[in-house]
């Protein structure tokens, strides 16, 4: 009875107010005309065409006409690669983006991106969030596949961390939306939502509770999903009607689920054919060797592991793990009403394990594995004395090797690999706080004298000349129009 949502061929939408947890493709047969698609859709899924779905109905008309014309089937080949957006995608932009991407990043896209990057740096108005918001929306539309080229994950991360301290944005629906998108990109969205609650970001916005509850529901924890809504009501989240509506929908789904289960139990006239369960541990037969049983249902199952059933446990487990990792005594205790463990959040949790990215970091001593007397590689030995004389500035103190944290002579803990410093946004934010603290207490060893924030504020870096060139271009256009003569006169010798 749960409807799986049909993805219209050209228009991909994940509608939050449906109980959807799965989408399925409606693939027309080859040669099917568009009309058939529409018929299928209307006959089987009448409830889906609800009034608030105006986007779909209008777009549907557009796409059907396109299909009927026998228009290019490019998107047919790429549709699986298109990431769904909550709000849906504009067809025209999608078409354009897909065709452009055949040839790699076109220069038009590059220029547009450059324009956004420079706008980020040049903006001096009251609402910097606006630039980020538009930039991210443009990126989503232009890069339907998501992926590394779009830099979307980086952008989201930068945007959310940049404004974490800005109280004025905490209840800005755009900002909350960015956080929700960021959470969706993370391996553990629940952690993000909890962090948001702890920091007071979006606690008066219905969208937070809706997204949060959806996540719980996806993980099968309907009880928590309901609790989240209660929380939202307690906080008088706005818009109230929307929250109420979604909550009712959740309750409806849950009750349907319960009814379904009850029905199934009742209508069990004939014994159902036992079905195989996936990821089940089977009892083995055979005395000496463990041989898999032929019948793998019923009594042959030893235990059922994996799948959906262990979800509730890790949810709590992660929270407690995170608490240990991120505890920062200097962070003010936030008013986390329901869960005291929220107070310990000092930084947003990991967005992803960034193995492939290396940020500038302090140089660690290069270590060469040393062989012990047994011939095994034992531990990371002390950095070998350099065989050349390291360059020493005349007036400088002797160059210091970065101090080796582990004294290998004493420490017998074996590690064949250098301890990997995981670069996570969590760590970065912590380091940032650390540096701020040190700067205040004057312990900072070095400081750069250039405008770091300006260079690094976007998704990619800028150099001084690029910054300057952007300002030049911004200035020169109005000048060229009316004041060319004046400019020439003033610059001539």
């Amino acid at each position, binding site marked *: 009875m749960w409807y799986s949502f049909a993805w219209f061929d050209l228009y991909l939408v994940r509608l939050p107010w449906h109980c959807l947890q799965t989408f399925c493709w409606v693939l027309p047969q080859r040669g099917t005309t568009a009309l058939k698609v529409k018929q299928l859709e209307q006959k089987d899924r009448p409830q889906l065409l609800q009034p608030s779905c105006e986007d779909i109905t209008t777009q549907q008309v557009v796409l059907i006409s396109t299909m009927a014309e026998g228009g290019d089937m490019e998107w047919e080949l790429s549709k699986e690669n298109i990431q769904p957006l909550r709000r849906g995608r504009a067809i025209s932009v999608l078409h354009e983006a897909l065709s452009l991407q055949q040839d790699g990043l076109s*220069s038009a896209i*590059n*220029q547009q991106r*450059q324009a956004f990057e420079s706008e980020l740096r040049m903006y001096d108005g009251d609402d910097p969030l606006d630039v980020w918001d538009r930039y991210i929306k443009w990126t989503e539309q232009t890069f339907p596949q998501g992926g590394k080229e779009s830099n979307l994950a980086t952008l989201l991360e930068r945007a959310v961390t940049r404004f974490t301290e800005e109280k004025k944005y905490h209840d800005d629906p755009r900002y909350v939306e960015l956080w929700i998108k960021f959470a969706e990109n993370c391996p553990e969205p629940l952690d993000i939502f909890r962090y948001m609650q702890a920091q007071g970001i979006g606690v008066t916005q219905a969208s937070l509770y809706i997204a949060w509850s959806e996540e719980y529901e996806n993980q099968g924890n309907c009880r928590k999903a309901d609790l989240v809504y209660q929380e939202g009501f307690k906080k008088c989240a706005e818009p109230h009607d929307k929250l109420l509506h979604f909550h009712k929908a959740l309750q409806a789904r849950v009750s349907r689920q319960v009814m379904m289960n009850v029905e199934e139990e009742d209508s069990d006239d004939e014994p159902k054919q036992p079905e195989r369960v996936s990821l089940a541990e089977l009892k083995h037969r055979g005395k000496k060797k463990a041989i898999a049983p032929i019948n793998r249902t019923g009594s042959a199952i030893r235990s059922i592991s994996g799948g959906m059933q262990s979800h509730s446990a890790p949810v709590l487990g992660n929270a407690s793990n995170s608490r240990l990792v991120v505890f920062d005594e200097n962070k003010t205790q936030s008013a986390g009403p329901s869960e005291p463990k929220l107070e310990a959040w000092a930084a947003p949790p990991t967005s992803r394990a960034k193995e492939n990215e290396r940020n*500038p*970091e302090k*140089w660690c001593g*290069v270590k060469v594995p040393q062989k012990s007397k047994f011939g095994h590689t034992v531990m990371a030995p002390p950095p070998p004395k*350099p*065989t*050349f*004389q*390291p*360059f020493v*500035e*005349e*007036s*400088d*103190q002797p160059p210091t090797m970065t101090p080796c944290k582990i004294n290998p002579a004493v420490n017998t803990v074996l590690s064949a690999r250098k301890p990997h410093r995981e670069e996570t946004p969590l760590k970065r934010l912590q380091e940032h706080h650390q540096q701020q603290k040190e700067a205040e207490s*004057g312990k*900072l*060893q*070095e*400081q*750069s*004298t*250039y*405008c770091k924030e*300006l*260079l690094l504020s976007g998704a*990619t*870096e800028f*150099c*001084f*000349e*690029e*910054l*300057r*060139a952007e*300002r*030049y*271009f911004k200035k*020169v256009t109005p000048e060229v129009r009316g004041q060319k003569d004046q400019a020439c006169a003033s*610059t001539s*010798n």
Partner: protein
Amino acid sequence: MSLFGTTSGFGAGGTGVFGNATTDSHNPMKDVEVTSPPDDSISCLAFSPPTMPGNFLIGGSWANDVRCWEVQDNGQTVPKAQQMHTGPVLDACWSDDGSKVFTASCDKTAKMWDLNSNQALQIAQHDGPIKSIHWIKAPNYSCIMTGSWDKTLKFWDTRSPNPMMSLQMPERCYCADVVYPMAVVATAERGLIVYQLENQPSEFRRIDSPLKHQHRCVAIFKDKQNKPTGFALGSIEGRVAIHYINPPNPAKDNFTFKCHRSNGTNTTTPQDIYAVNAISFHPVHGTLSTVGSDGRFSFWDKDARTKLKTSEQLDQPITACCFNHNGNIFAYASSYDWSKGHEYYNPQKKNYIFLRNAAEELKPRNKK
């Protein structure tokens, strides 16, 4: 060929209007000031090649112009000619015979300036500002290499409007250098690519950056047999890496050193780190000079791994430097490099180019 007579004092060559004996912070080294300097920040400097008699200096600036001066033996500089672009000039270079100057600009074009006729023709076009331009003279071809912020490296025969070759780079070109048959390009996001130019240009190797911060300038050095063997790479945080292409012992031969920092011995205050704006190698001695945002220049001996000299601090950053063909003259430009953004830009502040006798100061130290 010596530049200055031994008895003449600095600034007494009658060049600058400001030939004062008192210490001005704009010229603490009391070097020769070039007359008629550009009106805005100087982005590049280049001396004429040995094929031409005399010394001619070209300098491109953010005032959209590139100027040419003749530097006479007595130290006098005479402005000779000037060409304009429609955008700030980012780089300039000479042809090997000294008859043409090539200039690259933010207006996405590169021009060929024929000095004899004083005519400039557009020879290249990119989709973004062109950051670097170099002349390549190979036995079987000659061309111009342009690196741009549109992430491409293009090679142009000056007679044709289409590039001979276009190579895609992973990121925007930030700086480049060419010493045939090698070319090095340093890009944004710490990219580093070496190209080989024999027969036709092709990518030779991508190198993991030896530096942890944004690349800012690069210069190729040669070995005793006058063959290019490696390069020096400067970053935005006071560090230069010396990197050999095929060293016998990479861990031992490649190294980095800190430079352009303040407060060397004073540990109570944090050390200020400045960007390295340009690196230039002495054509004869093989020693190098670096200039930085701190308004100082330094000379180094990379083989002995020692510093030879550091200048006094100028009141503005030093944005460009170069040596003339025989290494007697060291030119450096004092102007704002935008290292602190537009708030610290003062359009009224004068920009300078200084010339210094470099024959003695850059002699290598004897290795211990």
